[in-house]
């Protein structure tokens, strides 16, 4: 009895005991759920397994910018189309939300009364209205655009209707690969110039116009090459034929609605993160750099932002994760993302609900963890390094 008492009063033993207990119960719970599911599926004669992945899908997906999807392709192809569409809207959304969020965050700290008010109203309105409603609102607005036969026309090559925005599509001809290679080379040499310029500045204090030289390399050089080898590119113009426009490129209203809603909603949160980050840098930093005689834009770029980023990046990561996961709401407007295509139509046509959902969940988990890993690497690189 006495020794038993001693055991439990030992902090280390107690903590190991309770942790083992919790893990054991958790594992038992999972085991129970899996067992029950398998048992009930079997009893109801519901077929299980992964074989359906290689069966032909039998339905069409119209929005598939990367893969040419046909109804004879398999459910696995449906999965890939869905993943790419999810990544597409998430990627575009993250970039646009970051830009808009930074802009609004900085505006809210500016001294312009009107801009500050407008930014304030924007943030409070968008982040307090459910995202699903915003997606449906944007979509409802977009399908009220003119019908396809009465499309709005710009410069004879852009057409806007409730079927989307049509624009010319560039067609690359032989020889364009040289231009492409030139662009890659220009990027590499810009990085080389940057590190060389930094070293030189550390040594001699002299500065080198890195930005403008990179601009020249990346834009002007490939452009020159493009004209020298005889413009190996033409355009495929959209034209109204029968029911729809043929040719050209199109951005569908489903995508636009998702993109706008995700961007505007998430940017409101990001702007608050940015604002708090900038405010976290003490006033003394600004005053000290001003007393050193730095330009106003330099103070922001070299002193304030690098310190603010340390506060901004961790919550920014969660916003990227939120945006990516929120893209699953595409089902509300028929955007052919992962949940809609594979987790919806394939699931329904094959009846393999558990398999499909497990795959979809594992995919979101993978995407989210990947984003986290990269953001953590970035976060580490901007942390204050003590020497």
């Amino acid at each position: 009895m006495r020794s038993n008492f001693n055991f439990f009063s030992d902090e280390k033993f107690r903590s190991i005991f309770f942790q083992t207990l919790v893990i054991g119960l958790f594992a038992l719970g999972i085991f129970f759920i899996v067992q029950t599911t398998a048992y009930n599926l079997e009893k109801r004669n519901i077929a299980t397994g992964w074989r359906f992945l290689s069966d032909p899908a039998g339905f069409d997906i119209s929005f598939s910018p990367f893969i040419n999807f046909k109804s004879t392709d398999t459910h696995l192809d449906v999965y890939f189309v869905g993943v790419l569409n999810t990544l597409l809207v998430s990627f575009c959304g993250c970039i646009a939300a970051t830009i808009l969020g930074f802009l609004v965050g900085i505006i809210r700290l500016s001294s312009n009364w009107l801009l500050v008010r407008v930014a304030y109203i924007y943030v409070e309105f968008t982040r307090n209205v459910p995202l699903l409603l915003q997606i449906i609102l944007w979509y409802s607005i977009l399908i009220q655009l003119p019908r396809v036969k009465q499309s709005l026309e710009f410069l004879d090559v852009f057409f806007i209707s409730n079927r989307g925005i049509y624009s010319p599509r560039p067609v690359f001809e032989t020889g364009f690969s040289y231009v492409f290679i030139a662009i890659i080379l220009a990027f590499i040499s810009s990085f080389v110039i940057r590190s060389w310029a930094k070293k030189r500045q550390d040594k001699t204090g002299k500065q080198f116009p890195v930005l403008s030289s990179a601009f020249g390399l990346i834009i002007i050089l490939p452009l020159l090459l493009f004209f020298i080898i005889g413009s190996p590119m033409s355009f495929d113009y959209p034209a109204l034929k029968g029911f729809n426009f043929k040719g050209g490129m199109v951005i569908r209203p489903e995508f636009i609605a998702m993109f706008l809603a995700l961007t505007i909603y998430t940017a409101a949160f990001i702007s608050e993160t940015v604002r708090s980050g900038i405010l976290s840098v003490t006033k003394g930093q600004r005053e000290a750099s001003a007393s050193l005689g730095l330009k106003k834009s330099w103070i922001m770029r070299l002193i304030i932002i690098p310190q603010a980023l340390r506060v901004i990046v961790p919550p920014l990561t969660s916003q990227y994760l939120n945006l990516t996961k929120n893209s699953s709401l595409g089902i509300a407007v028929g955007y052919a993302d992962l949940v809609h295509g594979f987790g919806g139509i394939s699931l329904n046509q094959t009846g393999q609900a558990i398999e499909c959902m497990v795959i979809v969940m594992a995919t979101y988990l993978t995407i989210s963890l990947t984003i986290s890993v990269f953001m953590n690497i970035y976060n580490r690189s901007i942390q204050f390094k003590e020497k």
Partner: protein
Amino acid sequence: MKKLLSIFAVSVFAFAANAGTLDDVKNRGFLKCGVTTGLAGFAAPDDSGEWAGLDADMCRAVAVAVFGDRSKVEFITTTGKSRFPTLASGEVDMLARNTTWTISRDVNLGFEFVGVNFYDGQGFMIPSSLGVSSATELDGATVCIQTGTTTELNLADFFRLNGISYEALPIETNDEGKENLFAGRCDVYTTDASGLSSTRAAAADPGKWLVLPEIISKEPLGPLVRHGDHQWGDVVRWSLNAMIIAEELGVTSENVDAQKSSNVPEVLRLLGVEGSYGEMLELAPDWAYQIIKQIGNYSESYEANVGPDTPLEIARGLNALWTQGGILYAPPFR
């Protein structure tokens, strides 16, 4: 208290019990029937809030067969997606929900289709202003299509077979389809012809819409139950067959009492005057009599809900009796 306890015991047991649905229903005191979220003519609340329609009548017929009372049924709405899990999990006892009988649903999903209460086929509806008179002229059109349905697969097959292209606009519900079609986001709406008639009847100006002549698929719609409970399957199957046989024999809700003294042997068997068919099904001897008395025969249900005199204006067509040029056919009552 005792009743409450037994209901509790049954509902706990229902998770485990698969066989014995008939007993479950009897103990519960009412039937749980899965229907659509609202499709005029098939299952939708009428002006007084009562569920009405061909599928709703199917549910009521089964309730009458079991309890002799058409009100002993709870209607549970299901979407195209939720219908199968709802049935598989035992949340409803049967589905009467515009569901197409296919091999994969019958075999792979673990269900049993007990018959066909409406022979349908997939059609197309377009604005008449487009000047299209055949579905083969739809090359390049944008088509609104409900996802997770057999129509989605038929659509892909039809366009592939005819070598023409289309753009699918996936939608979730019939209402969403209407909205997109009326706004011009899609040129064509495709679903079962009966559903198109229902949608057209709901349009502000039905004359502006045209249902194309092509029917591109077989869509036998019928009630279904879970696999493996044959007793319950028989009850639902013969509730439907009784209505069809009643039409064939000319027994209606009006003349059913007089028919009890008919000299036609099959009528007497159907109405429970002769034979012990109710006992075989573990139902009351007059179960079929009650169905015809309280619901009517198939023709009465059809004419009241979807027939030419209703807003849906669907002619009997394939759904006429086999003796009258249709394919409606029930095995003999013997």
